[in-house]
């Protein structure tokens, strides 16, 4: 078994929360052999990815980073978040 733990700091608690909710709902591909758990505390997004093989872990981590980078770019370009009503 192979495990990766990632910790990503964001400029604000709100932005970390947005990233968490954007990324947490997708399940891993059913034949991917990996499992992913996300959590958020204050301004830090934490990710744990577990895989049976190193190759699967690498694919999953790479894919997650692609989507994380996309979320960050979206936050930068179309943020900041409007205040909740």
């Amino acid at each position, binding site marked *: 078994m192979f495990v990766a733990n990632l910790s990503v700091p964001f400029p604000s608690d709100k932005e970390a929360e947005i*990233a968490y909710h*954007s990324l947490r709902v*997708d399940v891993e*591909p059913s034949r991917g052999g990996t499992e992913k758990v996300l959590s958020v505390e204050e301004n830090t997004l934490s990710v744990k990815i577990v895989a049976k093989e190193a190759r699967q872990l690498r694919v999953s981590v790479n894919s997650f980073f*692609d*989507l994380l980078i996309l979320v960050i770019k*979206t*936050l930068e370009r*179309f943020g900041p978040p*409007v205040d909740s009503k």
Partner: protein
Amino acid sequence: MTVVIGFEGSANKLGIGIVRDGKVLSNPRVTYITPPGEGFLPRDTAKHHQAHVLDVLEKALLEANVKPSEIDVVCYTKGPGMGAPLVSVAVVARTVAQLWNKPIIGVNHCIGHIEMGRTITGAENPTVLYVSGGNTQVIAYSQKRYRIFGETVDIAVGNCLDRFARVLKLSNDPSPGYNIEQMAKRGKILVPLPYVVKGMDVSFSGLLSYIEDRAESLLGSGQYTKEDLCFSLQETVFAMLVETTERAMAHCGSKEVLIVGGVGCNVRLQDMMEKMAKERGATLFATDERFCIDNGAMIAQAGLEMYLSGQTTKWEETTCTQRFRTDEVEVTWRD
């Protein structure tokens, strides 16, 4: 006044559209084009969409002259489609929905095509032929569902055409289907090909194997040209589609037929369907390439209908699914 933004990226086209009360305010789109002889793969397609989605989003907002605060609801394609491209687009939709504090709706790709087709053409209650690279279905609306009366039992008709274009090494720009269509216009000789209609259903995989296996020898014999093969493939597959559509129309007593999906751009298919409709005393509706081909506005339009009839998607369900049957959606916006 309701303003909806729609995100579509289930295959190699990425589009974002903004619709206000049935009017399309903007609909920019980019296409991931692979070299001749190659199809697009999910991972590379997803990378293409990730690289372009924010530019397309900005363009959609600018062209519509709409501010995020004016948008009422964010819609995205929940499925069906390719996994990685779907997720890449959904992640952006989720992020902006939170940034702008708007509700979000996951839309079925096929229903997006149908609702845009109905809105643009004004068709009331048509029998729908939905034909693209990923889908081939004959659909009619009944009791709150878009019912699938007939469909392909293997590959979509557009998939068959696209793969044959690979065999001939035709360009994928602007699309392999378009290039087959142009070649077919210059075809003169009909090559007999398997005609596989199964009641209301159709099958294309045997046909594709047949013409793939024989393409080299048919061309090598000097008896046929590439144009003849393209012509023959179109005549055969389109006749199959017309037959099954007519059978559904007869079964439902329908006086309208609507073609949606990327293959619906094909003028030869429209001609053949028009002839059948005319003989039946029915009316054919079709859209042009702005809306036939996958686009963001169709997702926005279907999302608008869903939103106005009270549907939104719970956050836990804002996932993507590669398989999402057309008849799974409750059509709350129609009688």
